[in-house]
């Protein structure tokens, strides 16, 4: 925060001609955009200093900072909205030198455009609601203050990702987000499963991040900048893109395509795309608000946001009616993820795990939306999904809380009477996620993706995969609802409704899960227009676009089919006992087993990546102990021998001579001490002896000189 403020000051000083002029004619909110991530980070720092009993102070700081960020985000959003003109891109950029290396320098900066503004409002708002909810959910946890410290730090990192105008700054905040995700998944670290899940999440996303970092380095090497926008000199503006397109990359790709794929690898790690999705379901070991905030609404959406942010790079070189290699890869991986997540979610029994696979699936939808329909299509689903998935997760948290930490839906049932507020809001979230027609935002956003996949120039494959996914989504959500809220109670004890601090955020989120759809209907696609700088008047003729209504009809039918099928199997004949077999399992035991085991992805990685890695680790261990260790031991042995020689010289010669000297001194001292016996006769004798000797000498001297003759 301090660095950022100093740096903005510095930029005003260092670039007197351009920077200062731009800085002072830029609106206040743009110059101070850094406050939005800085406030939660500062709150995190303060909370870290609090002792455990200061729960109210910790929650107050976190919620207060988030609320302030929310107000600033609204301010930024209204700024963009006010200066928005159809046909011109609304984009405020503020860059500054971060570090200079000789003549070149690395610049960081932040950007405020419709994309960032929308994300800012969404993240701060959903984040604020989840913070408030957490006060109730975590009320009895001894590490309450630590939890809010991590949450606030996460919010800061996430907001930093959003406003970053530099891949480098984005990457830094990206890693803060990754770190807090790790910390929060492993928040209950005394549970071995949680600790393992945290490690798994961290390592899996690191794999993506390595590619991401390589992409950044490559981009910097080619264009000399990591800024997105820099008044025509940014890395994803037309000048740099031309350079990137002319450079050959690898495997027949241009440099632009290669870099785009590397960046997508980072996004895939964060957003749980196949094959890096394995961490996301395990991440549900964290507290439920964390699952809602990080692993459903915001952080996993960061990958989607990243792809949207570098969309010009992804899209570079594609003419009208064409697509690029990078976008084709994104579309296929997204579609595969969407289908895979929906399939696996059918056979799970943990209430949060179902939602986790649902999230994986929906992130796939977003990726397909980005790849086939552009930024607005994918981002719209991101925003609506953030609201209804946060709602579902918080609802699931409320259920878990009410059932005394029970997560297995087989042992629940009949909760709609005990938990009415949770039930009705959960129904709203479930219908939005399933894409129930007309009334729910999920329908409009998902339909836009399915429609754009249908019109995609690349292939019809993703379209069919998404349709299948939509059927399955409606099916597994109906299964979950039927098992949790209908039928009869199959668990022990007595369920109770959650406190108001938890149900109130549910109500607010449910409201938005419904009304957000208004912004993206074909009659008034305001959201698309806002992001793409197009004026969009309200016009019913939007529905008259060829092929649109039939497609919507088909999509609706599919949703109804999924809901009906689910109700037929699970709702009309409610499960009697917790141990009863699943109807699908009874009919098709083998495929159900595959799905329940998540199509053996973890086992596959166990026998391939992990085994290979274990072998490599063994080899490294052997090299370390035998080869390098041997060398080290050799050197150490040589030095030990030298030391031995040194010791001998030291003891025998140096110490020896010193000891000898000391011995002599002691002996001499002994003689003197014997003389100094304290007996006066002895002294007297010595005196007499001395006098006699002196007298003798005097006599002798006299005799020699001839004075006396002896």
């Amino acid at each position, binding site marked *: 925060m301090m660095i950022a403020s100093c740096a903005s000051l510095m930029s005003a000083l260092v670039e007197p001609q351009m920077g200062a002029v731009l800085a002072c004619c830029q609106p206040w909110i743009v110059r101070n955009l850094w406050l939005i991530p800085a406030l939660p980070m500062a709150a995190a720092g303060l909370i870290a200093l609090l002792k455990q009993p200061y729960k109210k102070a910790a929650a107050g700081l976190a919620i207060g900072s988030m609320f302030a960020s929310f107000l600033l985000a609204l301010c930024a959003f209204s700024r963009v909205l006010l200066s928005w003109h159809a046909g011109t891109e609304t984009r405020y950029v503020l860059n500054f030198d971060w570090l200079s290396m000789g003549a070149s320098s690395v610049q960081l900066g932040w950007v405020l455009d419709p994309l960032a503004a929308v994300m800012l409002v969404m993240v701060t708002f959903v984040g604020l609601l989840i913070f408030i909810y957490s006060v109730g959910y975590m009320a009895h946890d001894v590490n309450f203050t630590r939890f809010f410290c991590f949450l606030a730090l996460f919010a800061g990192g996430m907001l930093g990702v959003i406003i970053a105008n530099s891949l480098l700054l984005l990457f830094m905040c990206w890693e803060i987000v990754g770190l807090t995700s790790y910390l929060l998944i492993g928040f209950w670290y005394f549970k071995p499963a949680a600790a393992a899940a945290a490690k798994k999440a961290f390592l899996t996303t690191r794999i993506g991040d390595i590619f991401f970092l390589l992409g950044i380095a490559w981009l910097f090497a080619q264009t000399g900048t990591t800024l997105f926008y820099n008044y025509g000199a940014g890395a994803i503006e037309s000048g740099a893109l031309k350079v990137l397109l002319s450079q050959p990359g690898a495997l027949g790709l241009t440099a632009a395509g290669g870099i785009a794929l590397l960046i997508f690898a980072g996004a895939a790690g964060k957003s749980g795309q196949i094959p890096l999705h394995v961490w996301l379901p395990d991440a549900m070991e964290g507290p439920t608000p964390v699952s809602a905030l990080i692993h459903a609404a915001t952080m996993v959406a960061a990958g989607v946001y990243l792809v949207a942010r570098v969309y010009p790079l992804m899209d570079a070189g594609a003419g009208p009616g064409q697509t690029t290699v990078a976008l084709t890869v994104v579309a296929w991986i997204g579609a595969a993820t969407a289908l895979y997540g929906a399939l696996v979610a059918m056979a799970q029994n943990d209430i949060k795990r179902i939602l986790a696979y649902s999230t994986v699936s929906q992130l796939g939808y977003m990726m397909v939306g980005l790849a086939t329909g552009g930024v607005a299509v994918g981002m719209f689903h991101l925003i609506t999904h953030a609201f209804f998935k946060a709602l579902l997760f918080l609802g699931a948290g409320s259920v878990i809380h009410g059932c005394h930490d029970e997560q297995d839906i087989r042992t629940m049932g009949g909760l709609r009477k005990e938990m009415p507020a949770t039930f009705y809001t959960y129904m709203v979230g479930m219908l939005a996620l399933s894409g129930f027609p007309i009334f729910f935002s999920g329908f409009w956003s998902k339909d836009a993706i399915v429609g754009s996949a249908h019109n995609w120039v690349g292939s019809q494959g993703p379209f069919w995969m998404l349709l299948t996914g939509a059927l399955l989504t409606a099916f597994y959500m109906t299964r979950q609802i039927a098992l949790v809220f209908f039928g009869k109670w199959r668990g022990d004890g007595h369920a109770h409704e959650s406190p108001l601090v938890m149900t109130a955020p549910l109500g607010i989120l449910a409201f938005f899960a419904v009304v957000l759809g208004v912004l993206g209907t074909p009659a008034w696609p305001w959201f698309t227009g806002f992001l793409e700088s197009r004026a969009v008047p309200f016009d019913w003729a939007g529905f008259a676009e060829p092929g649109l209504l039939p497609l919507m009809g088909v999509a609706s039918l599919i949703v109804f089919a999924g809901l009906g099928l689910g109700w037929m199997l699970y709702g009309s004949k409610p499960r009697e006992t917790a141990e009863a077999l699943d109807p699908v399992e009874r009919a098709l035991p083998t495929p159900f087993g595959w799905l329940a085991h998540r199509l053996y992805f973890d086992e596959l990685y166990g026998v391939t990546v992990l085994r290979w890695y274990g072998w490599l680790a063994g080899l490294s261990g052997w090299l370390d102990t035998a080869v390098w260790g041997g060398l080290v031991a050799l050197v150490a042995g040589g030095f030990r021998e030298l030391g031995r020689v040194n010791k001998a010289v030291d003891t025998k010669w140096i110490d020896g001579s010193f000891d000898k000297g000391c011995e002599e001194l002691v002996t001499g001292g002994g003689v003197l001490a014997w003389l100094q016996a*304290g*007996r*006066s*006769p002895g002294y*007297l004798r010595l005196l007499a002896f001395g006098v006699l000797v002196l007298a003798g000498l005097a006599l002798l001297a006299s005799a020699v000189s001839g004075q006396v003759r002896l």
Partner: protein
Amino acid sequence: MTPLAAYLLLAALVFAIGLGIALTRRAAILVLIGIELMLNAANLNLIAFWRFGPHPEALTGMMFAIFSIAVAAAEAAVGLGLVIAYHRHSRTADLDAMTRMKG
């Protein structure tokens, strides 16, 4: 008249006896007596050298001898005082037992 050498020999004999007593006796008072003997031998020498010297009329030897006797008396008084004080303190006048000054 008795030659000078006879006086000197007597003085040397008395001195030797005094020295022998002072070096061999363990009783502090006997050592003091030995010291007195040596002092008197020295006095004897002073008187003899004065009498046989070039100016026997100047009484210088006599002056030295009287000085020496006075000093010896003072010395005897101090020495005896020390011995008596020591004896009172530790009930002995044995010089070999007086080892408190041992370093």
